[in-house]
């Protein structure tokens, strides 16, 4: 019977999370908590930080269309000259 208890203890210990796993779980819980208890600025930050390329390319499309409408090819050539190598 004693031997059985020892076996169970080994199995129980093996199934426990490691220190690293515990830290990861805590970080996950804290980040989830921040999502629920956050200010409008924090919510906006979370929205942009998830899929940042979507926001960046969306904003860039607006500026490209508006600036090209105002300055025409002079603007696109300028962007190409400065950022295009």
């Amino acid at each position, binding site marked *: 019977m004693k031997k059985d208890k020892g076996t169970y203890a080994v199995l129980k210990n093996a199934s426990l999370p490691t220190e690293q796993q515990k830290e990861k779980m805590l970080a996950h819980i804290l980040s989830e908590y921040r999502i629920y208890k956050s200010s409008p600025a924090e919510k906006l930050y979370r929205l942009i*930080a998830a899929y940042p390329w979507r926001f960046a390319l969306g904003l860039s499309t607006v*500026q490209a269309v508006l*600036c090209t409408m105002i300055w025409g*090819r002079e603007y696109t*050539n300028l962007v190409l000259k400065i950022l295009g*190598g």
Partner: protein
Amino acid sequence: MNLFIEALNHPIDAFRNKNKTGAWVLVASTILINTVFAPLLTWFACAWYSAPDIFSMMLTTLWGSASYLAICTALWLFCKLFGSKTPLKAYLQTWSLTFFPNLLCSIAVVFSEVYFTVFWNNSIWGILLSIVFVGLLIWKTILYIVFLKEVAGLKGGRMFGAFIVIGIIIVVLALLNGYVGLKTPIL
């Protein structure tokens, strides 16, 4: 593949999970596109260009690696001055996860430079390229802010201060990158 998708779509999770392999692949690809692919494409596309020099390719590759180390050290140093407790190792492992815009920018720069005559004075290509270039710049800035907040652990005024100071360092390093022949800065 999931590792790249995570770095692309959820940078906060990617910073937290610190995927080393994916991070190094991103930096190495950006450097190699700049230093090996760019001269080769120029040589293939323009018949009158002389064959690329292997020594200069190796030298710019070294400059690219040095630039990555320099920006990580600058980030660590100035974030530490502004109160961050993150060790240098964490900066070296996670800053590379912000390299998706750099990688795409290096590809766009190579093609826009080699096939310059196609894009110059063309409204459609001009709009598309200005969306790409300005978009990548905004994307990198977002990742820079997310990095300062999540990895360096800075908030409010301290984060703003670090953003401005390191921003100036980034501009200086970008100019130095251009001087040594790295058209897309390895920053």
